[in-house]
Each structure stands twice: as C-alpha cells, then as structure tokens.
C-alpha cells in the first residue's frame, strides 16, 4: 500500500471512529438509561488514558544521556503548577510550550 493511500484511509477511519464515539450515546440512550458498564467506562477510562498519553509524549526521551529529560520535566512541572494554580488551560498550554522552546534554545 502506498504511503498516501495509507494516510488517506487512516483519515477516513479516524473520522468514522470520532463520529461513532460522539453519536453513540444519542443513538442508543435517547429513550433508555445507559447500563452500568458504560458508567464504568465514562468514569474510569478518561483519566487513565490521559495519564498514558502524558507518558506517551515522553517515550522517546533518552533518560541516560545528558540532559536526561530535565527540560521536559521542568516544562511539565510548570504546566502542572500553573494549571493547578490558575485553572486556565490556554495559559498552561501556551506558557508551558513557550518555556520548553526557550529551554531547548538556551540549555
């Protein structure tokens, strides 16, 4: 399969998956209450997935080589601190990214 075709098919498949997750509750539970299994998924899966995705972003850091991921950890620490303090998602994301880009230039 060519690379362009693979990407094209992936975009279509992703579009269908995203639509399906959004439409699912409206299609099935407009007239009846959702089963407890679904409440389990909606309560416990999202926080676990977010934690996994944070680690996913750090998967290619070489921890044994200088600077050992310090810049990433510092920037992440600032994002967490600012978000707990200010509760402003855009400030945390934008500020953290700017700090990280700066750290890459000066460290």
């Amino acid at each position, binding site marked *: 399969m060519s690379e362009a075709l693979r990407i094209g098919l992936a975009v279509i498949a992703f579009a269908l998956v995203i639509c399906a997750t959004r439409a699912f509750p409206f299609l099935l539970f407009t007239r009846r209450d959702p089963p407890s299994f679904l409440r389990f998924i909606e309560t416990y899966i999202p926080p676990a997935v977010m934690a996994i995705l*944070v*680690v996913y972003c750090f998967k290619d850091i070489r921890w044994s080589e200088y600077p050992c991921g310090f810049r990433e950890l510092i920037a992440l620490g600032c994002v967490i601190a600012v978000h707990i303090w200010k509760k402003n998602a855009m400030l945390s994301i934008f500020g953290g990214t700017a700090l990280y880009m700066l750290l890459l230039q000066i460290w």
Partner: protein
Amino acid sequence: MVLAQSFPVTLPVLFGYIAIGVPFGLMLVKAGYPWWLSPIMSLVMYAGAGQYIAIGLFASKAPFSAMVLTMLMVNIRHIVYGLSLIKQFRIAGAWKPYLIFSLTDETYALLTGVKVPPRIPAGPFYGMIALLNQSYWILGSTLGAIAGQLIPFSFRGVDFALTALFAVLLIDQIRRTKDVVPPIIGFGCAIASVLFAGSSNMLIVALISSMVLLILVRGRS
C-alpha cells in the same frame, strides 16, 4: 442576530484554538506531510487531541487495527459528553447532527456553561457556537501548516503543546472525579509498556493493560 449573540461566548475558544491549532499545523508539516492535509483533517476528523495523536500514528508503522483502536480509546471521553447532553440537544432541531459531529472538549465546555439568550431558538444558538469553534480550529491549523511550510525558523519544541494539553486534561479529569487510582494505573501501565514493549508499541499495550487492570480494581463498584 444569532451570530452577534454567540460570537462573544466563543472568544476564549478563538484564542485557545489558534494557540493549539497552529502547533498542530506546524507539527503535521514538520512531520513531512503537505499543508492541505491540515484543513482536511480539521474538517472531517475534527478533534484536538485526536488529530495530534493521528500525526504520531501516521508516522508509526503500527498495523491499521492498532491505529483505529488507539484513536477509539483517545476519543472515548466523547461518550461521556454525549450522555450528559442528550436532554439538552432534544430541542436543537436541524442543528442536532452537526452539534453531535462537532462535540469537542471546548465546545462541550461552552455548551454546558452557556444560557440561551431570550427570543433566540436554542438550536441555531448552539449550532453557531459549534460552527464558529470549528472555523477557528480550521483557521489555526491551516495557518500553522502554511507557516511551517514557508518559514524556515526552528519550531523545535512546539510539539510540547501536545504534552501540555494532555497534562491539563488529566488535571481537569482528576479535579472532576477526585479519584487518583485510574491515573496511577494508567501511569504505571504506560511506564511498564515503554520498558517492556518498546516505544513503538507502548500506546496500544498500555491502553489494553490499563483497561484490564481497571476492570480488576474497580469493576465491582
């Protein structure tokens, strides 16, 4: 009239979507894909975190089924959004299909927070909010992609926006659920997966193992 009432509501998302849409476009182009893939993705598979993850999945040599399963797990939180909006969307009329299609984290946050102004029907009001938000996202991601193609300036580190986005969503989730066990399980499974399954397979291994562990730990409640 509807536009004038809904535009001020969407202002925070305008700035936010430019701020995380531009890095998305930059990342896509820096990963070697053409700039026009950015507006296409923002149009048909409109999802902030999902689109970022898609760049990584394109580049990985993961099998198609693993790519789709990963996307499903990343977007499963949308089921939660839908469930809590079933009642609210009953009066949305013709806008309802589009509202469901465009239900991102930010649009969900706005729709659950706003009050419909007097003498304006709820459907077009909600619909205009959702439509404005998606246009900001398309605008931001396209600008980023074009900038990435034109400007040789080093955007090294701009992909940290994704890490920050996930960290912020995680903190918001913990704030809402007041339960640190699911994120600790996710964290532990993810680190074990990097160590034992390698970085190219870690996502799918971590998602499945944490799901199994969660069912074992929390399945009875």
